[in-house]
């Protein structure tokens, strides 16, 4: 069975014909050619596939496409056009938060989701906010530093 599913993807109204239980991750990657969200585990454990739905951080590998109907989906490709992205990416670079990079788009989305909710997070808040996103290269501290940096640099923007 295939359904027509309409949603807002990175600010634009889109429509896709697919099985209602197709993973949103596959819809993004296969139907819209947006490969910034990665499959790291396919089980909602690693956060590499993180996107925002109506401002909330979700693992797109566990999210059935039908549930996106009428909602706003934001991926790294959508965020990329914003000043917010510039601040986050500069902070990630300056703090040395990027190594292999496979977790990074997801980390950026998680950082943005956190800062939207809590523009002045403590270190504890950041560790909590990123705890659903695994990284095997950095040991996390430089990512946490990047989020602290971004919070300060983007004051008033979140």
């Amino acid at each position, binding site marked *: 069975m295939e359904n027509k599913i309409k949603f807002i993807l990175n600010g634009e109204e889109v429509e896709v014909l697919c099985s209602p239980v197709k993973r949103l991750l596959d819809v993004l990657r296969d139907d819209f050619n947006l490969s910034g969200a*990665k499959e*790291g585990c396919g089980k909602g454990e690693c956060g590499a596939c993180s996107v925002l739905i109506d401002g909330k951080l979700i693992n797109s590998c566990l999210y059935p496409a039908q549930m996106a109907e009428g909602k706003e989906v934001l991926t790294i490709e959508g965020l990329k056009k914003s000043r917010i992205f510039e601040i986050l990416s500069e902070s*990630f670079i300056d703090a040395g938060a990027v190594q*292999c990079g*496979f977790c*990074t788009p997801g980390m950026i989305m998680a950082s943005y989701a956190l800062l939207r909710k809590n523009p002045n997070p403590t270190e504890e808040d950041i*560790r909590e906010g990123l705890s659903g996103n695994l990284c095997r*290269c950095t040991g996390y501290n430089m990512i946490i530093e990047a989020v602290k940096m971004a919070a300060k640099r983007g004051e008033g923007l979140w």
Partner: protein
Amino acid sequence: MGRDIALSIRRDDAIAKISGEAKYTCDVKFENMLYGKTLRSKIARGKIKSIKYPSLPEGYYIVDKDDVPKPNKLKILKSDMSVFAQDVVNYVGEPIALVVGEDKEIIDNILSKIEVEYENIQPILTLEEGLNTKEPIYGDNNLFADYVVEKGDINEVKNRASYVYEGEYETGYQEQFYLETQGIIADFKDGKITIYGSMQCPYYIKNALLDFFKADSDKIRVVQLTTGGGFGGKEDYPSLIAAQAAAASIKCKRPVKIVYDRDEDIEFTTKRHPSKIKLKSYLDDNFKVIGMEADIILDGGAYASLSEVVLQRAMFAISGVYNIENLYVKGRAVATNKAISGAFRGFGAPQAFFAIEIHMEHIAKKFNLNPLDFKINNLIKRGDKSSTGGTFRDEIKLKEMIKRAEIMSSYNEKKSRFKEERKEGKLKGIGMSLFFHGGGFTGSGERDHIKAKVKLLKKIDETVEILISNVEMGQGAMTTSRKIVAYTLNIPIEKVIFENPDTDRVPDSGPTVASRTTVVVGELLREAAEELKNRWNENETLIVEADYKYPEGYEWDGDKFKGDAYTSYSFGVNVVEVEVDSITYESTIKNVYAVYDIGQAIDERIVKGQIDGGIVQGLGYAGIEVMENKEGRFLQRTSSDYIIPTSKDVPYIYSELLCEPFKYGPYGAKALGELTFVGSPPAYALSVEDALGLEISNIPVRPENILEVLRHGK
């Protein structure tokens, strides 16, 4: 390029990774591309009696042993592994065939209908079974390697020793868990196989495929794609996937992509060797360790892979940073019917350093000595002989490093304060480890096997391209290589180009392993850049080459394991502080302090990234990363039950460098990547031991094991 090479610069690969534009294997699509999925053995050991394939829909293919050239053996170091099972299987998950086609769901459906009939053979699942088997998996004695390293005269020492201490230490499996799973695309066109994918060693794949397909050198090309972490896991295993994908592409006449699911990757790809190590030390009346006997057993899994060299590194590291003049070290790598044990950051050294660091601490406790004083009393210094009788030629700064770590961590103050706090029920502990890592290949590997060659290409626009086969996999090789070249030529970093290696364009500068990229390949790049600088105006375009030269005055006898096992040593001191919950016995890591001697840092931010990442991987290894095998299957085989550290499991890490430059490294640089892993497991175990006042000899340290020890004693 500024004049202080250590000052950090922006990583050129970062922005494409952050924005999601970087193309990893999973993101790359070719026209007409098919997908392959692996049919795997369901049993740990047996003969394949028959395979029944269902009838296939149009455009779907089975690729198995009948589609590859005889003898169907892939050469890693030895040629004992089939690309597709021939008639026996030796571990749960051993590849039998590929199902190839366009639609992944249809592929899964076909896979579910294949019937394999086995004749079971009693599997070998433990080291004891592997050592005593009458039905060996490998050779006559079921050992991938069986070595002895001797130094001095151990028997003479036995007669004059005043004290003897014996202990046994065990370490478990560890999965690399690079965030990007294994992935390869093969494209067979006009008689030529091109392999694209996630890898550490493009020429390992090329050479393995040349041998496997008996092809001419120009018929195999390997191109690395953006690689999402390796940690050793993408050293040898990609050669296997590449051979399978290539066979599929030849058969289907279309590009074929294989990308592993996470659970497939966790359960079936290579892992760190579990170890069992017995150490017996002989001490004189001043508590100098005058001799040591070691028996090291590694679980190699079903096929030889790199076990023999992992074992060598473990054996050469077994006396740790201590000057023990008489040694007898026995080492064996045992075949078992489990997934293959392969390369993982540290490569045998973490197992050895865990054993020796715990052993030294336990000796001190046994004879009522201050552990740190006892260790310092036995430290190696410049001019002393290594375990293989080589000479430590450079200044060893360990004493200063220990002092620095003590100050940074308030070690002595905390040691006594925690003792008081424990009396009030707060189970706090602190532990310190001392360690080294030998840079580059063991023994004469660089000289006799790798023979690295690098090229620099000066182009008409006055940019310089680096042509090497070493890969950027997250560790920063792209940035450090470009810095070395730009710094030497004294040109802006933007003028130096580094593309992902393509074996049709780059010479074989060796694999991206053994912490060798900066210290070995970086030095060749420096030499080539030096020459290019001198010849800069000779022509508008120029190619300059440099070849590896074994440093003068070093010696190695690979048959007897005598001489300089390594040309440079990097050193480290780690301190870990924990608090253990008095009810659940779960440990929380409170603080970590680290001091390293890595020679000249080439980029401080990249160095910090390696330090933090290595320490946290080591803490995972020692604490929470549990992988047990029961009846041939891993109990922790999915990302839901094989747990790696999250941002909440680790504290800030205080680290400093205290460096002694190395004459033969670029600007004095030494090895870094693996060193950072080696020290945190013993420091963690010792901190838990301190907190609980009991002896810990096994990692991972698990709350249930602590309970067991508390209930029943050791």
